[in-house]
């Protein structure tokens, strides 16, 4: 039986995908069970712009036993409570999509129903005023109560803004300490068996690396899964029209606001991500709508700090691999699919792919039912997030701009149609959806026709008091919370706050 066990795992490509994979696998497998090799070339750059994360990264770090203070020091991280979307529904709009809950559920009914009902009595505060994360974020505070359990606000999640290149470097140290072998070199040839399985790689130096299981972390180039195994890439450009990004780092000083800012632009959007030592900025756009020069101009004209380097242009294709796992090759990271970072999901998708692989870890037989289960899972998570991102583009009222008018009118995926119809009709969201739907829908002016009818049988005073109370509690908690800069300083100085 042991004859069939995987003995050699080869990860092709470094960067966040490669080193997260190496670190997680090395941590998961029994010591000495497998040889894990990562091949990367210093000559080939990594994308290096994935800098905003979602709370699931904390689980990744936790499983790997990575200390938060150490992690935040190494990655120059700041906290993230959510994403601020400017000019998405209409010009001049600004709403925060927070992590965690909005208000509280009562009598089995979600808070936004109460909020909708309360509008009738002149309670006109935006929905985000009832999310601790959103209120604290705008005030530049970190509500540390969300890090503990048992408090009425606990379970509110948070994530980080990180220097992804530094994260990869940190994980490299971690992985090498756990026995992962790093080989420097460029892959020039891939040898396949008659079955189509990958047998070995040849590097420029002539070195041949053989393996049982290959993980393709070669990014957009997808050297193994596409160039060799010819696995189809599903093109989503008809739903997500942006195909380029121009990025530039800037100086950052003063108050750290714990949110990612995503501002809609003429034919795309622009992000600003605060780190400890700098800010990351990027303008995502559709190159058939505006030229690279115009895109660069827009970016440079709207920076809130001094540029620290020349702007760089990147191209991408929205979509995903039809099957991320094919034969003895698993694509993780950009080789398995790409969605623009509108909801900061790139690192999450890497993490998801890695953990799913560990859950379904194969032997040399590479049985199809396990591979199918993996592919179904990955397809589902990619498609779910894709739909959520399309939603942001779809719910706009900027008919004066051709790009945005197209987004209003484009046919959307059936599943998304159903979800939108459900929310529009009765303010309900199916379980298993990604993100806080009421925040995005209401933030972009999609208001339900009907709130939960049971509210009309409740005492108006009770509802008013409940809603007002929620808002007041949040204001009070925010006022008590430390300023983000101070909190980070304390954490890094003492390890614990």
């Amino acid at each position, binding site marked *: 039986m042991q004859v069939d066990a995987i003995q050699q795992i080869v990860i092709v490509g470094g960067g966040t995908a490669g080193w997260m994979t190496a670190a997680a696998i090395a941590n998961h497998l*029994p010591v000495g069970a497998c040889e894990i090799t990562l091949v990367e070339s210093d000559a080939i750059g990594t994308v290096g712009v994935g800098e905003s994360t979602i709370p699931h990264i904390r689980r990744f770090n936790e499983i790997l036993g990575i200390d938060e203070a150490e992690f935040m020091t190494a990655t120059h991280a700041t906290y993230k409570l959510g994403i601020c979307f400017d000019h998405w529904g209409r010009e001049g709009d600004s709403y925060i999509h927070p992590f965690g809950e909005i208000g509280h559920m009562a009598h089995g009914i979600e808070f936004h129903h109460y909020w909708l009902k309360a509008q009738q009595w002149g309670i006109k505060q935006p929905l985000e005023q009832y999310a601790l994360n959103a209120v604290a974020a705008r005030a530049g505070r970190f509500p540390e109560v969300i890090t503990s359990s048992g408090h009425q606000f606990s379970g509110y999640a948070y994530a980080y803004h990180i220097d992804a290149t530094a994260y990869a470097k940190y994980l490299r140290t971690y992985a090498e300490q756990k026995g992962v072998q790093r080989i420097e070199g460029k892959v020039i040839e891939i040898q396949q068996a008659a079955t189509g399985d990958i047998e070995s790689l040849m590097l420029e130096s002539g070195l041949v690396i053989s393996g049982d299981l290959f993980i393709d972390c070669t990014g957009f180039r997808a050297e193994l899964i596409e160039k060799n195994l010819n696995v189809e890439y599903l093109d989503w450009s008809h739903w997500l029209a942006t195909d380029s990004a121009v990025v530039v780092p800037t100086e950052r000083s003063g108050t750290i606001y714990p949110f990612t800012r995503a501002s809609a632009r003429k034919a795309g959007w622009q992000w600003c991500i605060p780190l400890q030592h700098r800010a990351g900025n990027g303008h995502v756009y559709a190159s058939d709508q505006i030229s690279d020069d115009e895109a660069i101009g827009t970016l440079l004209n709207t920076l809130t700090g001094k540029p620290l380097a020349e702007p760089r242009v990147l191209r991408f294709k929205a979509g995903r691999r039809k099957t991320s796992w094919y034969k003895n090759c698993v694509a993780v990271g950009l080789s398995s699919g790409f969605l623009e970072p509108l909801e900061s999901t790139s690192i999450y998708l890497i993490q998801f792919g890695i953990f799913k692989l560990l859950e379904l870890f194969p032997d040399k037989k590479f049985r199809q*039912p396990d591979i199918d289960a993996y592919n179904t899972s990955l397809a589902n998570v990619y498609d779910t997030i894709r739909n959520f991102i399309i939603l942001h583009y779809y719910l706009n009222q900027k008919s004066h701009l051709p790009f945005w008018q197209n987004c209003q009118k484009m046919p959307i995926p059936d599943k998304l149609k159903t979800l939108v119809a459900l929310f529009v009709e*009765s303010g309900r969201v199916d379980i298993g959806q990604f993100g806080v739907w009421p925040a995005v829908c209401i933030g972009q002016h999609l208001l339900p026709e009907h709130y939960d*009818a049971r509210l009309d049988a409740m005492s108006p005073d009770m509802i008013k008091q409940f809603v007002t109370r929620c808002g007041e509690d949040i204001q009070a908690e925010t006022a008590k919370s430390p300023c983000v800069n101070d909190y980070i300083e304390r954490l890094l100085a003492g390890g614990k706050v």
Partner: protein
Amino acid sequence: MSANKPIKNIVIVGGGATGWSAAVGLARGLHGSGVSITVIDADTAFESAITIASEHVLDFHKLTGIRDQQLFQSGIAQPWIARRFYGEKGECYLGNDIDMPRHGALDLHQMLNVNGGDLSSCSLAASAAKQGIFAIPQGDSPASFRTGYIVNTGKYRDFFRGAAIHLAVRAVAASITAVEYQPDTGFIAALVCADGTRLESDLVIDHSNSQDILWRDCSPPVSMSSHLPAQLMFEERSAGRGGRADPAVSFTRQTNGWQQQVHAFGQGWLAEYRLDGSGQQLATGALATPFYKNTLAIGMRAGFTAAPSISPLNLAQRAVAKLLDYFPGTLCVPANTAALNAELLKDQREAQDYLVLQWQLADNLQTGVANLLPPLSDELQQKMALFASSGRVSSSLNPLVTGQMWINTLWYALGESRGVDPLAYMAPKADIGAFIARHQAHIHQQLARLQVR
């Protein structure tokens, strides 16, 4: 556009344990909202005299504030902790296990795959049941399994009727003689009973024994294709007084169907599901749209499920909980209805798949039986293929049947053709052996303590 108003009147058509459970569930869930609930306690859909309720009943009792001790003390319910499948080829015990301990990332059953050993020896519930011991999880310490309840259906009904009346639910004993419909929507507007009572109904819960009562020219919802024989005959009878109470529910294949045995309330009970012969005829389909216009069908009305899977009573109780999540207004707007139906059908399909797998397991333990089961559903085939490949089960959101219960059932249903997690071969064998031994010793200790009591 007419306004969506709060539901003010709910009429539950058909009583029984199911109808009265629904009444209590709704009365509790809608407490303080001024909704009036009436049960028409006549023309009730079929319920067996003894119901084998799965552990899901605990969730419903928690939701409705029912204290289980009361049910035991009044001889209404008796706990069961494992299923026993038996036949000429042998027997096996499947505990109602919640979770089994892991060694790192390795599941216990995977360790057994490598180390050898029987799954039931690692389950306190299964081990206890094998020895006829009623191991009941005590309140405080974390339990490794959950009890189901063998329920005297009539007494359970009476108990819930009492609870419902206490919550101001009204009862009408007369049958329906006429149905009034809203002219524009075709929704049911009111139900008229033989005693002259006229009940306005914004929402109707259907646990009746005939759909002709409630639908007139609206075409009735289409049946979902079933993975069972189109019809089954059901018969139950007492097997005589005396004998010991049994903490397991037993199940076996017979020539023309399947038989279930329990020992509860001082006597044995047999229930049989047959392709033909005498007894109550049960259609095995399910409604494709259990929530239709302003009527929600529950229990056997909504679809067939049977022992040893999740009972219709359990599915009905879950349906009430889901209804509260998607509670409509008077308009019963369509997207909300569709979403609720999707949730309800998920449960129905899973209950049927679970049933088919268990009947398959029973078949495997007999010799020379004809295959009475039609082709498996895609989902069930995938589950079996994955388990045969690597002994794994996919996780899903808010499942009806938990991962561990699927593992337990697949373990025995597939037997030697189950697969093994490759990771199990990578861990040091000595470590695995030691872990299993420790766990089994722990179970011995717990059993010994229980026997002393």
